[in-house]
């Protein structure tokens, strides 16, 4: 079983369909009689809607219906909700302004939904939308994150005076102040964590379909979590009760968090399908994605690190303004607070930490989760501070980290910011990374580069990650509206193959392979006999879906638990068949054996017997071999790692060339190293994108998105990134059945700090805001006096 079990680099089961064009994405689905929705969006960041005239548009060819603000409400269909309403330091809940599906009185960002046109063809819907006459009265817009709290900043919502959504804190402020009071050295940094646009290559899409026969609805949608979509659309939008709404999330072309929120377009498609009596299809074009998908990051931070004379970290203090955009997206308030503040210990024994986060509203697209979600921002602050402290105190950046690492005998480790790290051994990770990066040879390489007129730098990022937010009771205590367990059903079919139903939806992570490996490993069934089913609420039981690198640790653990139940029941069946007692039956490599004898029966035969129970203990045991499990973890998992980036910069152009990237990660037990390495490559590349290329830029007066297409928003391309060197150290997670921790976000968390540390080191600058574009780097080189002689 080793070649297909846990730890094997099994080639992916899902690849054949993707490689032959047989993937089935939402936009690939067409329903008989479908009509097309097009959303008319606000061209203004802030305006009063004085009137909407749709008369000409309604008479345009092919138009079936046009809906505007108030129409959903007239049918009792409510607005979008926020499912993670945190409580702030003053005991107040985050302010949640109303967010209608279609704007009623005011538009709050460029891209806000004003009307939906439904027509026979998409082109006709677009043509008609051009005929809608909207009378806007433009108002002053609040745009910049740092300016949102200014007393004279334009007000975004009456519910949030001063544009303050929440004022949250974690840690002990007094203890942290005391630590700073006795510091030998204090390193200070003002940091901007640039706003990003997730940009999964598949745009969002939705098809709503109403079946009058059963008075039921189906929503095909690009969703990471179809059951969450169903419960929200049922319980909060009131479109249909849960048992009358089926949500199907087929193949998803990347998500990275952006397909977790519940969006207006998908709710409108379901609701409108009954009104027009035909399936309603909507697919975003990329320009819409830029405006109407949630954005990520967008922090402004003042941070300080207090050190003693030996470079030991005594205290860390950070004050952050986090831009929430114009409305609170589905889980937005939890991102810059709990998923951010809890990570400020990093890998270090810093004894006093205080983090204050003010969430602010602006007239920009809502900000929610994007790969890493809060953790990249925290890591950026911690690792930039550590790097600068080392430079300021004249300590080697590796040495300063080593002096402060949490020692391996300290786990479980209680940080000063609530989190309890489950397991880790950080020094071997660092050592392995140093060896792979040939740190010892860096100075020689730097000198060589200098001889050829180049600036060379090396940057570190010793990140900590928190995956699989848990347990549910903790989630509830911090304001999360749902549970955070995962479900699995492992069903043996009578002929011995296995169908597994999982709530962990896949958007490229290879679940169909990795989960089959778990089952193959646990049950001794050939991997080709295992089929993974996900993404359909009519097939899979209620589940929480994919986010926060939770699929392996939580979803995978649920599958392992269900497998264990299969084995437990199989032992009873086998004991009967083998005329033995259950206690004597052992399970190994796909067969039940009577200990100390040669009597054995395969699990496939046991499955057949379970469904054809002619020789079966029916008095004591139900037929069938089909087990459910719900797994609610005891804690987060805390992967960690060390990324080392080496850059060479041409001072003539400011272009940063990444000449080496080493990632050594401790993800706990690795199920499929090929897939996990791929997750690291992709995560790091998104981090490189943030650090060097990507920036969501708004006009500071009008709020127009200036980076609204791939012509302006610089996505990483093949020639922007290097090949990567990836290594693993495994310290198993002690509290889940697989020992896995999670790997999806780590690269995006680690990479920006490593890269900016390398670039600033090469230049000799104390800081450089992301993205470090050639222009910024070129200017910084000149400010640092490193420009080549003319």
């Amino acid at each position, binding site marked *: 079983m080793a070649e297909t079990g846990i730890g094997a680099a099994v*080639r*992916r089961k*899902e*690849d*054949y*369909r*993707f*490689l*032959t*064009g*047989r*993937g*089935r*994405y939402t*936009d*690939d689905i*067409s329903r008989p009689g479908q009509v097309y929705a097009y959303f008319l969006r606000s061209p203004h960041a802030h305006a009063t809607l004085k009137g909407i005239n749709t008369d000409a548009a309604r008479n345009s060819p092919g138009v079936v219906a046009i809906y505007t603000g108030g129409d959903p409400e007239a049918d009792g269909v409510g607005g979008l909700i926020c499912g993670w309403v945190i409580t702030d330091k003053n005991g107040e809940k985050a302010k949640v302004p109303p967010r209608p599906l279609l704007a009623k009185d005011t538009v709050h960002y460029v891209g806000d939904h004003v009307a939906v046109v439904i027509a026979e063809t998409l*082109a006709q819907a677009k043509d008609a939308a051009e005929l809608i006459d909207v009378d806007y009265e433009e108002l002053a817009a609040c745009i910049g994150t740092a300016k949102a709290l200014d007393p004279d900043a334009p007000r975004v919502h009456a519910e949030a005076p001063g544009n303050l959504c929440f004022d949250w804190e974690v840690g002990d402020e007094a203890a942290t102040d005391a630590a700073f009071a006795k510091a030998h050295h204090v390193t200070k940094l003002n940091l901007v964590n640039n706003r990003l646009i997730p*940009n*999964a*290559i*598949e*745009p969002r899409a939705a098809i709503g379909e109403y079946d009058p026969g059963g008075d039921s609805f189906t929503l095909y949608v690009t969703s990471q979590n179809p059951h969450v979509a169903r419960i929200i659309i049922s319980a909060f939008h009131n479109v249909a009760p849960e048992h009358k709404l089926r949500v199907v999330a087929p*193949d*998803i*072309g*990347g*998500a*990275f968090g952006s397909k977790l929120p519940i969006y207006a377009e998908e709710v409108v498609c379901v609701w409108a399908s009954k009104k027009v009596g035909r399936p309603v299809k909507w697919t975003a*074009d*990329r*320009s819409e994605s830029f405006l109407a998908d949630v954005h990520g990051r967008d922090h402004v931070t003042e941070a300080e690190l207090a050190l003693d004379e030996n470079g030991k970290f005594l205290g860390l203090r950070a004050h952050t303004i986090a831009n929430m955009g114009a409305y609170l997206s589905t889980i937005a308030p939890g991102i810059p607070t709990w998923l951010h503040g809890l990570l400020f210990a990093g890998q270090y024994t810093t004894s006093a930490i205080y983090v204050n986060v003010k969430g602010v509203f602006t007239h920009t697209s809502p900000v929610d989760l994007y790969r890493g979600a809060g953790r990249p921002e925290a890591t950026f602050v911690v690792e930039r501070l550590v790097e600068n402290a080392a430079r300021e105190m004249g300590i080697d950046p590796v040495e300063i980290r080593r002096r402060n690492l949490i020692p391996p005998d300290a786990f479980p480790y209680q940080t000063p910011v609530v989190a309890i790290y489950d397991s880790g051994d950080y020094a071997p990770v660092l050592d392995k990374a140093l060896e792979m990066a040939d740190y010892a040879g860096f100075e020689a390489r730097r000198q060589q580069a200098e001889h050829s007129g180049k600036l060379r730098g090396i940057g570190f990022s010793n990140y900590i990650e928190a995956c699989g937010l848990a347990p549910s009771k903790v989630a509830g205590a911090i304001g999360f509206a749902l549970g955070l367990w995962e479900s699995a059903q492992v069903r043996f079919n009578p002929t011995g193959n296995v169908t597994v139903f999982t709530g962990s939806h896949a*958007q*490229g*992570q*290879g679940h169909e392979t990795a989960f089959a490996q778990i089952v193959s490993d646990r049950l001794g069934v050939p991997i080709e006999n295992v089929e993974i089913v996900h993404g359909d609420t009519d097939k899979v039981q209620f589940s929480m879906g994919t986010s926060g690198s939770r699929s392996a640790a939580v979803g995978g653990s649920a599958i392992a638990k269900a497998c264990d139940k299969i084995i437990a029941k199989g032992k009873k069946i086998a004991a009967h068949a083998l005329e033995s007692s259950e206690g004597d039956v052992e399970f190994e490599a796909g067969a039940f054996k009577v200990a100390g004898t040669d009597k054995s029966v395969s699990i496939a035969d046991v499955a057949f017997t379970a469904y054809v129970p002619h020789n079966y203990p029916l008095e004591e045991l139900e037929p069938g071999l089909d087990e459910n499990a719900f797994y609610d973890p005891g804690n987060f998992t805390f992967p960690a790692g060390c990324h080392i980036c080496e850059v060479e910069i041409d001072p003539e152009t400011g272009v940063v060339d990444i000449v080496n990237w080493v990632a050594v990660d401790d993800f706990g037990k690795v199920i499929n190293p*090929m*897939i996990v*390495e*791929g997750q690291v*490559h*992709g*995560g*790091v*590349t*998104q981090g490189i994108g943030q650090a060097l290329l990507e920036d969501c830029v708004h006009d500071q007066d009008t709020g127009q998105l200036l980076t609204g*297409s*791939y*012509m302006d928003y610089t*996505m*990483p*391309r*093949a*020639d922007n*990134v290097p*090949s*990567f060197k990836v290594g693993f150290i495994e310290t198993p997670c002690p509290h889940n059945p697989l020992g896995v921790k999670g790997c999806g976000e780590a*690269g995006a968390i680690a990479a920006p700090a490593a890269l900016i540390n390398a670039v600033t080191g090469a230049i000799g600058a104390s800081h450089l805001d992301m993205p470090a574009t050639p222009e910024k780097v070129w200017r910084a080189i000149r400010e640092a006096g490193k420009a080549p002689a003319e």
Partner: protein
Amino acid sequence: MPTISMTVNNKTVTGEVEARTLLVQFIREHLGLTGTHVGCDTSQCGACVVHVNGRSLKSCTILAVQAEGAEVTTIEGLAVDGELHPMQAAFKEHHGLQCGFCTPGMVMSAIDLLKRHPDPSEETIRAELEGNLCRCTGYHNIVKAVKAAAGGTGS
């Protein structure tokens, strides 16, 4: 509405389309060949790359009527009798895909790349794939797959 006719994956197809119909819309919506994807509206992402008369081309950049009489190959036309084209096989072997959405365009571009550069260096592969965006893989394994499909030394 104009009637157009072309050969797609070795089959002659005809259709009546609005003049403004893009080739990619004709392929996806009229022919039902949904393996060719649309990822942007500015001809930047390359998810829609197909072969037209033997050359890779972003099928969102031309009108369907412009492909009148052309020989078009889409991702569905590569595998023969269920056997993957060597480039498809290399992507599978080297994990050159994750979500699969950019993959059809990436594979079609990569095949054309090897026609023009039979033994490409890593630098050439990266430069040549500049017109295809992938958000999942970080390109590392795509480059590896293309190199493996070339089978050469890449020096």
